[in-house]
């Protein structure tokens, strides 16, 4: 095998488990060599509620992926979502110690340590520390080393999650005899797929609306400045329809996919459609207006919660690249229009890069693709710089894709 390494990117989602297998060949090229997928069981709102069922579904997907790749996975990178995730921002600062005013590596380290000094609350574990850039005497610098100044500052966005829930997912993978190399927030993973470097540099908000949760990541200056999870996803749309129209979940899901639309147009208020369309017993007419009303209320709520959570950070001037939607639910008709209306920022539905296999190019695969990309990139650069810099440094560097 030599230098080639086979890694797996796994997303244990609410609707399905996706496993992508990628390999790093030599120095440069990244290939997706296999894929496995299974209907998810025992996962609700992005969190495992039935360990046995979730394990079975995940293991089935891993086996399918290994079969399609014709090889075994050596290490796993995992996505992470769920309402238990939380984050906070902190600043670290230190005075430049050298008498000539040049920043030393030790100054950088103590500044970073200062920013990370806060312990996570009991029962919580840090998932990411994301570097938001250094400032030397107030001006932003990419790499302060050997620059001249007096006071070095750094901003960090810390993401932490419930220890139990994070370890649940890891245990599922360990149960298959695989080690989890790293876990990556779904929103950040999606972000590095649907938003290109230019967008991330200028400022962009990526919203990944999945089946169980909605994850968002806000980029300023190429850094992840804020992340968050709203515990609403496509499942809620289906559930709302099923309750509101008094139909089964299966039919609600069909209606959502076939007719779902995020805004209510005046013209289609009186349209009606048949529930089954085959004139069998129980078939009845359902007004499209009712479907739109129910979906609209929910979609509007998702965006208004994000708006509320981001507060002042959601400023059209700060994110000129606008809002990019991804995830399974971004396929909902006119959802970008609704997002633009509620958030007040121009929104488009994101696309995965063209180098991605066509079978996984739909927006619902953004996050798992992002994790694979992350994992492959991490492996590619392994050995050269990462080993000496430590895991946090590596993570921060990778996540910013600086």
């Amino acid at each position, binding site marked *: 095998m030599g230098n080639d390494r086979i890694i797996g990117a796994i997303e244990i989602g609410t609707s399905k488990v996706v496993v992508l297998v990628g390999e790093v060949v030599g120095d440069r090229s990244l290939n997706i060599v296999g894929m496995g997928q299974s209907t998810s069981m025992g996962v*609700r709102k992005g969190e495992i509620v039935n360990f046995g069922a979730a394990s079975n579904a995940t293991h089935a997907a891993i086996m399918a992926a290994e079969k399609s790749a014709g090889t075994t996975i050596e290490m796993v990178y995992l996505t992470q979502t769920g*309402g238990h995730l939380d984050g906070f921002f902190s600043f670290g600062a230190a005075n430049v110690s050298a008498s000539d005013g040049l920043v030393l590596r030790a100054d950088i380290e103590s500044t970073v340590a200062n920013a990370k000094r806060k312990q996570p609350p009991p029962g919580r574990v840090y998932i990411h520390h994301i570097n938001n850039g250094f400032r030397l005497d107030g001006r932003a610098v990419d790499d302060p080393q050997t620059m001249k100044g007096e006071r070095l500052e750094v901003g960090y966005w810390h993401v932490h999650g419930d220890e139990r829930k994070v370890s649940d997912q890891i245990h599922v993978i360990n149960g298959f005899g695989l080690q989890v190399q790293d876990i990556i927030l779904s929103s950040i993973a999606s972000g590095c797929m649907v938003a290109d470097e230019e967008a991330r540099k200028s400022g962009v908000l990526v919203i990944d609306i999945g089946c169980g949760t909605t994850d968002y990541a806000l980029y300023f200056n190429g850094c992840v400045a804020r992340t968050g999870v709203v515990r609403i996803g496509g499942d809620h749309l289906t*559930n709302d329809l099923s*309750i509101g129209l008094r139909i089964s979940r299966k039919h609600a899901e069909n209606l959502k996919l076939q007719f779902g639309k995020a805004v209510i147009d005046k013209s289609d208020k009186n349209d009606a459609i048949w529930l089954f369309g085959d004139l069998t017993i129980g078939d009845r007419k359902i007004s499209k207006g*009712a479907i739109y009303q*129910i979906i609209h209320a929910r979609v509007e709520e998702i965006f208004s919660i994000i708006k509320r959570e981001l507060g002042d950070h959601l400023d059209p001037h700060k994110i000129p690249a606008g809002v990019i939607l991804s995830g399974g639910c971004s396929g909902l008709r006119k959802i970008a229009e609704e997002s633009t209306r509620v958030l007040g920022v121009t929104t488009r539905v994101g696309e995965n890069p063209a180098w991605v296999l066509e079978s996984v190019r739909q927006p619902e695969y953004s996050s798992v693709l992002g994790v694979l990309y992350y994992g492959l990139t991490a492996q590619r650069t392994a050995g050269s710089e990462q080993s000496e810099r430590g895991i946090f440094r590596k993570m921060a560097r990778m996540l910013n894709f600086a």
Partner: protein
Amino acid sequence: MASEELDQPLITFTQDVGNESIRLKIIGLGGAGNNAVDRLKLDDLTRVNLAVVNTDSQVLSISPLEEQLLIGRATTRGLGAGGEAEIGRQAAEADRAQLAKLAGGADLIFLLAGLGGGTGSGATPVLAEVAAEAGAVVIAFVTLPFTFEGQRRHRQADESLSRLREICHAVIPLPNDVLLQQMDEDASVLDAFALADQWISRGVRGIWSMLFQTGLINVDFASLRKAFENRGGKTLFGVGSGKGEDCAGRALNDLLLCPLLHTPEFSRRADSLIVNIVGGTDLSMAKVNEIMGLVTEKFGSRYETVLGAVIDERMQNTVEICVLGTTEINPGQRLRQQQNRPQMPAHIAKNIESAPHPTPSPMGSPRLFPKSTRRRKLQREDSQGEFQFAGTDEQRGCFDATERNYYNGEDLDVPTYLRRGLKIRL
């Protein structure tokens, strides 16, 4: 001839008795209340006295009503309460004696007010107290401010509403937000306020016809008083009307869609319930029976249901249904809490604590929402005869077995349209 002579005095005699026995008075407080009373279309409602109370002499002067009372002349010099509930309250306290005179002698008093402002929020509880002390049955119809009117007004409205619930026999809140939702997008604010007045008017008329019109089955004042003898609970109130063929079915449908029954804090089970049906001479007993069956099935009370059916000759081919009930009287609440405490798993309690920004919502309602769901669970345990599977999953569907999903005091797993009280046109 002889019989006619006999009949004639008999009829006037009953009318006289009616006049004597129930004196109904409708009092509007504050700007919104004054407007509501002025706009009540009561041409055909007899035996009703109207009055307006305000701290603002200017508003009073444009009211066409004769019976007016300016309160708090000493505190506000007749210039209004300036949106301060405390000033409204002081004004009312200062003129308690006059309020007592205004309320005196009435058996049933409707208070109409818009909560959130100064006079409406401040003076209404005082007047309600005075009226209840004088022995009247007090029913308050109060509008709650739009969300865009701001936190402060919501807080005032909320405080006032909870005070009114302690004092009044029945309080029917009409959240402006909910009423607005059934309007077209291009409706103006004036339209919205007019709509609120219209709902008040429908409500007043519903109770009026229950008491004053006669028909197949009468609801009398005593049963109204009895139904509301326990105070402090919440009031269930809804009206629905239907016209033409299958008017009964349409009325029923309309009732189920009544926005007042879709406010989030509403619990669909009443402790005691009054149902009144108004219809034309074509209203058959069978139809009444059918409606009653469906209504009681939907809102079935635990203790008592009073049925009324009224014939109004002008209402041919039309049916109007009005339901009025009480829910969540205090002793029940206490019982509920006791029984629920051990049932609440620790992770739910933890979840509530760890919910992001658990600031109490200005309306106070979302917090009540999960409670009422729990209450329904409990009630199903109480009464064995009911279906076991038609309850809580009505609200949470497939998320029923999962942790509650609190955000800002609201359970996000409950459909948004339900929490917003959105009327879905099926």
